[in-house]
């Protein structure tokens, strides 16, 4: 009886699975016979520089700094828009002028609010 024309695919798949499994089994056998694990507390230590680690790796990080980063954004964005604003100052129509002033007012308001709340003081 002739084999199915696609039988070689099944054979390929079987070999492709069996070959790496056999290699892994040999490696595992070698490990069991000739590389017995010898774990210890010092050996399994997290740090590998010879110096024992101090304290816990799960420390609390002071998240206060993010407020400074956000407040810095006020100046960052302001500079970005104030420079073209200054360059086009003489040719601006009244509507654009009002919109720009409202924009600066919004940003300044945020800064004043943060200042008032004491966020600019490092605690």
């Amino acid at each position, binding site marked *: 009886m002739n084999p199915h024309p696609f039988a070689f695919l099944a054979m390929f798949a079987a070999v492709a699975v069996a070959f790496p499994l056999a290699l892994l089994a040999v490696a595992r056998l070698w490990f069991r016979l000739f590389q017995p694990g010898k774990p*210890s507390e010092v050996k399994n230590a997290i740090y*590998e520089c010879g110096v024992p680690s101090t304290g816990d790796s799960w420390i609390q990080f002071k998240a206060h700094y993010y407020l400074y980063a956000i407040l810095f954004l006020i100046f960052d964005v302001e500079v970005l828009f104030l420079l073209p604003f200054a360059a086009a100052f003489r040719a601006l129509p009244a509507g654009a002028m009002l919109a720009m002033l409202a924009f600066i007012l919004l940003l300044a308001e945020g800064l004043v609010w943060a200042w008032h709340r004491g966020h600019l003081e490092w605690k």
Partner: protein
Amino acid sequence: MSDAAPAPPVPTDAEREELRRHGILLTSMEELYNWGRSHSVWPLQFGLACCAIEMIAASMARFDIARFGSEVFRPSPRQADLLIVSGTVTKKMAPAVVRLWNQMPEPKYCIAMGACAISGGPFKQGYNVLKGIDRFVPVDIYIPGCPPRPEALLHGLMQLQEKIRGQSISGPDAPRHLQAGTTCDYPVPQFGEHDLVPTKNPAVWQPPVLVRKEGA
């Protein structure tokens, strides 16, 4: 491992040489294994003092430790086979050295490079100098010199390779990690009030016994 069946005849070196002349290479699993690992001894990237400069020189183009398969200086003890104690081990540094030695996987080897690592060298009388790393770590190869030249380190490495090739992977003279009941745990010394506690690892090192000659 003891087999009930009689051991197969082992060809002598002369017979092997004779066969090799006729183009037949005899080997065993053990020999192949030892040959392979003796040519890929990866040292730990760990320098202590002036000897480390010679160690670096040995790894560079002029002396080229790569010829012996040991150019791969590993920055992590988990990947290293060889600890080259290259320089003075102060008592402050000794726990770190022993901790690194503990973190290396077996089979591992130690080379004491230079007078300081062997005995404390010129600083032996110093209150803060360990008088030889072999008090805490089993040393395989001692390389004398102050500092030893790179050629001396290469010679030490070749001696170590010879030692590795001579090891068997079973039987009573198997390496320590294959012996049943060994933990391969080397206690890390602590800083005591005056000295390291303990001052030595008695399983590894005992002070030499002074034997007086009769009638002297």
